[in-house]
């Protein structure tokens, strides 16, 4: 079994699973996330992916950027496709028709396909207990179809279906707490990750592969095109999202044991959300004083969620 590559030295030696030449946007964090996932792999792996930016931009026929077996079927069904893959591999091994001792199966979706349209398939996959790692790369909107709001879109975020206008401050609703909902399925492992804290990412992804049964990784994935952020700032933005409590880093074991990860645990206090908003054009409208009350609601909500999470993790 291959070791996870956590140090830079080992990372340089590990085979990349995504080649250069894909057509993701400049500054998009998703390819970095896939490469970090690759650093965690322990051997033969099959990837099943939902429709999304990553899918369309890495597999434009007759080219592919994927160095490992990969399948895409539709927008909302990678969890179901992966269920079929993992069960088929197992039974074919039992019947002596597969030489691979073990094949890891990973399903990937963006936030639209994971928080919204493919949520039912994920829930089914989790309930049935297949040995699959599901990873959502969350860039906060349907970026592939032109930046429409999703269940992962943040309050105050402007998208092409949650415009900031004279009477609206962007999306008004809170973000669906997907990792918590997934953890409520009482599966062996849930973790949130981001590409800045890459060691944390790789170690968690490896843990997700190693547990028996379903595991879920929620990866924060800045999108310069949709967020109107600088292309060179995506990794810094990931760090800032952790520091402001937008994307706290934690693990949940068996749906019961909540563990705050060091980068979040070591924070004395959260940085002001205004710092995060200031980095992205999609929050620019929030500077208008007429949204002060709305901003306060968001700040209160984030700090409330943060305190609740700390409590769950036994940090009081």
């Amino acid at each position, binding site marked *: 079994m291959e070791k996870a590559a956590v140090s830079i030295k080992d990372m340089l030696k590990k085979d990349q699973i995504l080649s250069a030449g894909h057509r993701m946007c400049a500054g998009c964090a998703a390819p970095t996330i896939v490469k970090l996932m690759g650093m965690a792999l322990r051997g033969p792996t099959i990837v099943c992916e939902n429709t999304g930016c990553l899918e369309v931009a890495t597999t434009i026929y007759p080219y*592919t950027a994927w160095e490992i077996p990969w399948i895409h079927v539709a927008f909302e069904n990678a969890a*179901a496709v992966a*269920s079929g893959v993992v069960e088929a591999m197992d039974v074919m091994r039992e019947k002596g028709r597969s030489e691979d001792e073990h094949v890891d199966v990973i399903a990937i979706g963006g936030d639209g396909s994971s928080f919204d349209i493919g949520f039912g*398939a994920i829930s089914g996959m989790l309930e049935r207990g297949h040995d699959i790692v599901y990873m959502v790369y969350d860039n906060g909107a349907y970026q592939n179809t032109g930046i429409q709001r999703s269940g992962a879109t943040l309050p105050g975020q402007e998208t092409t279906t949650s415009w900031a206008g004279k009477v609206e401050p962007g999306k008004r609703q809170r973000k669906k707490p997907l990792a918590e909902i997934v953890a409520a399925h009482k599966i062996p492992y849930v973790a949130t990750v981001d590409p800045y804290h890459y060691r944390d990412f790789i170690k968690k992804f490896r843990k997700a592969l190693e547990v028996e049964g379903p595991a879920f990784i929620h990866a924060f994935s800045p999108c310069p095109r949709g967020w109107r952020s600088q292309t060179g700032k995506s990794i810094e933005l990931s760090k800032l999202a952790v520091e402001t409590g937008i994307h706290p880093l934690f693990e949940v074991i068996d749906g019961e044991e909540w563990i705050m990860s060091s980068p979040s645990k070591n924070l004395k206090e959260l940085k002001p959300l205004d710092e995060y908003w200031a980095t992205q054009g999609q929050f620019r409208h929030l500077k208008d004083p007429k949204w002060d009350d709305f901003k306060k609601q968001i700040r209160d909500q984030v700090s409330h969620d943060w305190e609740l999470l700390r409590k769950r993790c036994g940090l009081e």
Partner: protein
Amino acid sequence: MTSVEKVPQDKITIEGLTGDAAIAHALKQSDVDVLAAYPITPQTIIVEDFQKFAADGEVQTRVIPVESEHSAMSACIGASAVGARVATASASAGLALMWEILYCAASMRMPIVFTVANRALSAPINIHNDHSDGMGMRDSGFIQLYCQSSQEAYDTTIMAFKLAEDHGVLLPVMVGIDGFILSHNVERVEMLPDDAVQKFLGVRVPVQPLDPKNPITMGPLALTDYYFEFKEQQDEAIWNVPKIYKQVEAEFKKMTGRSYGMFEEYKTKDAEIIILAMSTMGGTAKAVADVLREKGEKVGVIRLKMFRPFPAKEIAKAVSGAKAVMIFEKAMSFGAVTSPLAMEVKSALYDLEKKPMVVDFVVGLGGRDVPPTTFVEGYEKTKKYVEKGKAPLYETLGVRK
């Protein structure tokens, strides 16, 4: 093709089975690797019976009790992609929920066997038989085989794997039985011994599976420059079906003495009016033809089994000597020129120099009974239309107007 032999009668198991149970037994003997399904009436017994086989350790199959039919077909594609033999079952609304993924299964060339207890589509919600589900998926790229009896459902399910998995085809197959009329009706079924089925089918040999040793990308994005070529190849593949189906049937016949053809012809040789129907209506039509023949009427029956690909030339030839083709079909295409089966038949006859009249009757929607008297009513009308030389594009029978 493997070489099979005639199975001696003492190796045959005879049981009274519903259409659903017959399919469940066929799936069991076909050594399916993965079956993913979601419950829906009147298909449920197929999966219930199969789950019982699994619970008793009689099959080496991973059964995935998915949370929706959409996921059922998706899981089937995943399993088929790594090279497994795969099946699912559904009906009506469940089939409709799969619709998006049906196209993916066919276009990604996954040889999945999909048994369907054909049932009406909502609304109003109705659990009984018609063919609106099957007709709704007719352009998806699935091969479609409709069965008349439990025996045929058993035989066709087994043959479907061989047809689907043939490297000249590699397409999914829908095996249709009439909901309740056949799915829940007990008939005598002759079952083959397990080893005969295993020898007939062999183990699936995938062409290009997802395999870590030979990584490939499946289901990529193909735009204006390549999408059309995928479709062209898919179209070529489905037209390989008649030839390969014939080979599969010939081999099955060697083993069992039974074969069905793309359609069944009954007393059509000198027939002036040919009744054309699918599935269990074929049985009624034949009984009606017998009675009418006794009265001196020159009537015959074609019971169509293969709707996709549609055997256009063969049907045209088979009806070319008749004065009229009287179609009985259980689906409507709202706002279309006529109904699905009649559209196919009319198109098939277009190039004939001397065309029989096509008379189309939509019957039996939502499980409305189609008794022999309805056939006689249609027959009398057809005779009048032939005399007049003109018939409506389609009409309904057996419905309050």
